């Protein structure tokens, strides 16, 4: 009898143990990610995957929601005190992972540390407007800017706050080992190695909403088929950046659940406006001296010959949206009034004839093949679409390692490249792409097309210094409309991103910045 009871107790114990282990399992989230951080020092790099991973360990001064709109984070509010001063109120009662409390001193230190330690993907782009950070009291910080800087809070969505006593020196080793990796974020670092697994555990004293998962493992699996296989074999619970071809198959597969979200990335076509094209166009096999892209009718013809619906439906397997401007229209400074782009082959041919190219011309067209999902496929499809308008476009997709340096040397006459409005507002995009390349004012750095329009430059500069949000939005809407009607660049499609997970395991709202944040993922109810 006694032994019987013992057996019963044992069995009960075993059952309890099993129950425990399953609930412990449910507490762990394993994510297969395409790319991870390059270091645990949050000030090292501006790379998207770097920021995404470190958002678990560190908090930023200003936060963003799923749609890249500003929300309070370590700062509870921000207001301009005068033309060149912003006041940030720092959240009280926020604890670092070692128990010390966050103050304005830590924020000031973080701003000042960035220029000292940042690497080739320099974070100084987010602090370059700062002239001085002044601690008013423990929970108030004044930031003086060089000139009016209305987008400073947008810049600070990437301002990760570290403790002010960790020292200024660059010390990636100490961050990687965890010694210096003390943030205020929802998770604390357990271990990481370059290109390997990032292991995180929940920080119990987190100031925000308690994260659902006790342990989070982010496995870096850059190869697409390998990442999909890891999910299907159950090695990971969730993956990001599902390739379009696998997405099509997954829709018929009940063992996988997919999540689709818009991305900030739009594939844009660039024309060189230089008087002498670096790669001359050919009419009937003869190189000509003129640059046809200086003629607005030619640019319009290229635009009209693009069948954006077909691009989305056929080339991208439905994972995209036709784009009519360089960023999602509802972003700050986007235009809701711009019409959808039309597809009109006849009109395109007429315009080409009017411009003096009744038989079209031949041009080389370059793009990337490894930067964004579908970039090479869209590029080649575009070549074929333009062929139907009588143009001979030699589309060539290249590795980004070759493409980007060549674009910066201005070696191409026409190219396609993705652009993501990562700050969620227009000055980032239009200031960089359509303003004249002018080192004096620090604008137009990525205007490799040599486009220059003084009227537009004046508008952008006026808008960039305007502190009144409504007025600034209006000015940028005007910039957007002029640029798009001029067809300085031609937007084609806005890409969408796919995540996949084990079915009914979790709830997840895709973010437009494509970040996969464990503290925003909850177990399925």
């Amino acid at each position: 009898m006694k032994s019987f009871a013992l057996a019963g107790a044992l069995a009960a114990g075993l059952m309890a143990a099993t129950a425990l282990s399953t609930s412990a399992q449910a507490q762990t989230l394993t994510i297969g990610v395409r790319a991870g951080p390059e270091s645990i020092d949050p000030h090292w790099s501006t790379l998207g995957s770097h920021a995404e991973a470190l958002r678990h360990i560190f908090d930023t001064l200003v936060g963003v929601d799923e749609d890249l709109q500003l929300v309070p984070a370590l700062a509870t509010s921000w207001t301009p005190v005068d033309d060149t001063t912003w006041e940030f109120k720092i959240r009280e009662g926020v604890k670092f992972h070692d128990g010390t409390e966050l103050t304005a001193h830590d924020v000031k230190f973080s701003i000042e540390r960035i220029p000292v330690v940042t690497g080739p993907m320099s974070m100084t782009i987010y602090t370059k407007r700062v002239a001085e950070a002044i601690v008013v009291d423990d929970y108030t910080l004044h930031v003086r800017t060089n000139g009016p800087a209305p987008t400073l809070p947008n810049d600070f969505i990437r301002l990760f706050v570290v403790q002010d006593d960790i020292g200024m020196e660059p010390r990636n080793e100490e961050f990687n080992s965890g010694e210096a990796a003390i943030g205020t974020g929802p998770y604390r670092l357990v271990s990481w190695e370059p290109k390997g697994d990032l292991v995180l555990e929940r920080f119990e004293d987190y100031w925000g909403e308690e994260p659902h998962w006790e342990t989070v493992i982010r496995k870096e699996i850059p190869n697409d088929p390998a990442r999909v296989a890891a999910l299907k074999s159950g090695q990971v619970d969730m993956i990001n950046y599902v390739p379009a071809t696998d997405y099509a198959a997954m829709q018929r597969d009940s063992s996988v659940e997919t999540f689709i979200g818009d991305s900030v990335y739009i594939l844009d076509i660039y024309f060189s406006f230089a008087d002498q094209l670096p790669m001359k166009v050919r009419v009937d096999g003869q190189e000509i001296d003129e640059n046809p892209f200086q003629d607005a009718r030619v640019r319009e013809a290229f635009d009209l010959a693009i069948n954006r619906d077909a691009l989305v439906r056929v080339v991208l397997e439905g994972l995209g949206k036709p784009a009519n401007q360089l960023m999602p229209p509802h972003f700050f400074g986007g235009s809701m009034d711009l019409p959808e782009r039309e597809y009109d082959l006849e009109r395109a041919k007429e315009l080409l004839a009017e411009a003096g190219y009744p038989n079209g011309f031949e041009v080389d067209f370059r793009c990337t093949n490894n930067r964004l999902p579908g970039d090479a496929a869209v590029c080649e499809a575009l070549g074929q679409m333009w062929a139907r308008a009588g143009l001979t476009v030699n589309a060539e997709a290249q590795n980004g390692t070759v493409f980007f340096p060549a674009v910066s040397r201005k070696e191409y006459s026409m190219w396609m490249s993705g652009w993501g409005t990562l700050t969620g507002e227009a000055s980032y995009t239009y200031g960089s792409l359509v303003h004249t390349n002018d080192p004096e004012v620090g604008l137009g750095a990525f205007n490799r097309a040599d486009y220059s329009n003084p009227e537009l430059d004046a508008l952008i500069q006026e808008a960039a210094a305007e502190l009144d949000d409504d007025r600034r939005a209006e000015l940028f809407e005007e910039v957007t409309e002029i640029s798009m009607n001029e067809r300085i660049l031609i937007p084609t499609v806005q890409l969408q991103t796919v995540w996949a997970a084990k079915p009914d395991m979790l709830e997840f709202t895709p973010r437009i910045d494509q970040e996969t944040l464990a503290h925003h993922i909850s177990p399925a109810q």
Partner: protein
Amino acid sequence: MIGFLIQRLIQAIAVVFVMSLIVFVGVYAIGNPIDVLIDPAADQALREALIRQYGFDQPLPVQYVTFLGNMLTGDFGESFVYRLPVLDLILSRLPATLELALSAMLIATLVGIPLGIWAGYKPDSLSAKLIMGFSVLGFSVPTFWVGLLLIMVFAVELGWLPSGGRGPTQEVMGVDVSILTGEGLSHILLPAFNLALFKLGLLIRLARAGMVEVMSSDFVRFARAQGLPERQVVSLHVLKNIAIPIVTVFGLEFGSTLAFAVVTETIFNWPGMGKLIIDSIMLLDRPVMVAYLILVVILFVTINLVVDLTYGQLDPRIRTKGAA
């Protein structure tokens, strides 16, 4: 003997020198690493400042001489991407690659050579034909495709083995090893087999060809005529004579497996050196590329040296010539 070693050393230094020059010129021709790495929101001043900071504004010869000078003091520089000393970065990945390459070579040797010998010993049997058919598949079917197939069958459909990654590691004499646990073994099985496949085919064919040739030679006939048991004929006289080409190929293959296990490492997400070098090439992380290739040169020179020394052991004639 010492003269021979010194000669090898000089050769190695010359190769390292030429190779680093080629990599330098190559990267310089592709373009500026800053243009690949830079953030889209950077302005012109920042770009200039970064180019100056990393010394890319210097003419190529100056960059190269600076690099050579640092290298002579043992400083290979820091990775642009990770800001870690490149040597540490590469050496931290070496155990994983070494483990994978050794396992693959072990599979290839232990399976390939006996099969090849058998196929050469009974060249007309059905089993020999099957073995030869398999060997053709082994080196004609692309590695990445077989790798994906292995994953689909054993990881996704059957669920017997993990689809990728490396198992938990233990430290043995300062080196992280994963093959001491069952979980570690289950992780390494598929990638090691995948990597072994090509070598397996090669070794089968080499062993068979040598076998067929040697079996019809005079000394084998004499040995048989002498009444030696067949087992002794094969293991004592034949094997020793087919060993030299096998050792040569083994050495070369081992070197290339270590240096270029890239495809297998990528598909199985094995945290080895191959993945590191591919990523570094994509980002034009020049310090890592140069240091890695120098390591590869040293590796090949060392392996060739070991192979040469082994010849001497296997065939006394080569030893005499070397001494003369």
